[in-house]
């Protein structure tokens, strides 16, 4: 068992990236991600980490520089938030389409306008279909552990895709938590050095990112999609092996008090922990309620979601983003797609909660439960609700 240290989660993420012996960090600071790259630049400047820190002039340049350094064969990390992720948008597709493994920590923050530095999942949901692997972590330990895990999965030759590790801005990025750090031996055991299958090499000139004429583009998209879907196997294997090394077992989704639950919440990210506390209190009141916390977002675990939710009466889907003018919540939309083929489907009651940093409290979860219980008792399914919005 490793040493437990109290540290800010952003610092923990930076320390984990150092443990992963990253080679290149092209980064641009943006709230609330700044502490990660600030600390990494200090670690490089002070000689603790032998890496190239590239202070670029924008996030578009940060992601472009990441593509170049991975293509040259370097283990590469960056981090961003909100407008920064939006500015990277064009290059996100290029990183994944060129199948360049890299790790990006995304401290989730809402998008402007109006300007908001606070937390929701609007930024990453706008980057949902960029072809990256995407996971959500919910506490400091998960964030720390998943840095090593993310490099391992991303660089696996059966995957070769970039990955976003999403964690809630401020709610997680700026809190101090006890984090059990890995020993150098544990890192060595779990994370092999990056061996690119091919890279930019003057002695063996190749072209990366060439034009894909109509005769070939379709096949590249098929290959990319299949690789993303298949990455789940590599993720699961890496989670299993991480459990052997550090004793913490993670999975695609996790159940909390769901065994006999007719009504279950489905959450993603930091609010899962508030939801579990709400579930504890409602259990004390005799309510059969649980929570399923979704960790893997891309690829989406359709089979696991259908299996876990299929037998329930009501699913309370809690989204942290809004598909404006569309289905409401992007997570709920995916859940409904997973449930549609089933003969016996639960009702899905949808909530959009905590946009732009609005607090989501235990009381909010209890009210959501009451609305779900009314549907379970035969009431009509209401349209998606913006939790706490003033009339």
């Amino acid at each position: 068992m490793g040493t437990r240290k109290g540290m800010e989660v952003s610092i923990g993420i930076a320390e984990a990236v150092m443990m992963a012996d990253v080679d290149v960090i092209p980064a641009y600071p943006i709230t609330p991600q700044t502490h990660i790259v600030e600390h990494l630049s200090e670690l490089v400047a002070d000689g603790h980490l032998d890496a190239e820190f590239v202070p670029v002039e924008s996030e578009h340049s940060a992601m472009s520089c990441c593509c170049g350094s991975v293509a040259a064969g370097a283990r590469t990390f960056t981090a961003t938030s909100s407008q920064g992720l939006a500015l990277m948008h064009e290059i996100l597709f290029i990183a994944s389409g060129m199948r360049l493994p890299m790790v990006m920590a995304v401290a989730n923050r809402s998008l402007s306008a109006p300007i908001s530095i606070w937390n929701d999942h609007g930024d990453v949901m706008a980057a949902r279909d960029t072809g990256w692997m995407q996971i959500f972590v919910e506490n400091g330990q998960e964030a720390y552990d998943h840095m090593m895990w993310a490099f391992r999965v991303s660089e696996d030759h059966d995957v070769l895709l970039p990955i976003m590790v999403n964690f809630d801005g401020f709610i997680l990025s700026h809190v101090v938590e006890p984090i059990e750090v890995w020993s150098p031996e544990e890192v060595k055991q779990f994370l092999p050095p990056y061996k690119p299958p091919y890279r930019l090499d003057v002695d063996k000139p190749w072209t990366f990112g060439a034009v894909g004429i109509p005769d070939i583009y379709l096949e590249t998209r098929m290959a990319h999609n299949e690789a993303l879907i298949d990455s789940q196997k590599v993720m699961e294997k890496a989670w299993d092996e991480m459990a052997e090394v550090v004793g913490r077992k993670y999975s695609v989704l996790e159940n909390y008090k769901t065994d006999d639950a007719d009504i279950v919440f489905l959450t993603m990210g930091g609010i899962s922990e508030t939801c579990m506390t709400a579930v504890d209190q409602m259990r004390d009141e005799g309510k059969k309620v649980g929570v399923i916390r979704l960790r893997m977002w891309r690829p989406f675990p359709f089979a696991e979601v259908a299996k876990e939710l299929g037998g329930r009466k009501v699913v309370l889907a809690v989204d942290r983003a809004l598909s404006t003018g569309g289905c409401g919540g992007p997570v709920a939309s995916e859940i409904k797609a997973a449930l549609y083929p089933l003969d016996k489907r639960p009702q899905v009651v949808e909530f959009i909660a905590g946009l732009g940093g609005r607090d989501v409290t235990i009381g909010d979860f209890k009210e959501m439960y009451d609305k779900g219980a009314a549907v379970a008792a035969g009431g009509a399914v209401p349209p998606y609700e913006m939790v706490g919005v003033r009339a």
Partner: protein
Amino acid sequence: MSSLPGWKALPPGCPVQTPLSAANNHTGSWRSERPIWNHEQCVQCGVCDMFCPEACIKQTAEGFYEANLDYCKGCGICKQECPTQCISMKQEEE
């Protein structure tokens, strides 16, 4: 139907592994019309060759010019620039 690779055969990210291999792609399949030279009007000046953006027009042993239809996309710039207007464009389906 084609000798092009299936999706499973592609290397991840589709890097071009052979320098100058773009010439293997016979992009003339995009063409909807082809240039025809009228040798009675042609003065063999070579302006068509100089302006061709694909560099696919070459002089023959007889001194006239012709397009390599493996690459000619039928853009018609040769016809536009020809000082004697000896080039006409012919629809491919004709």
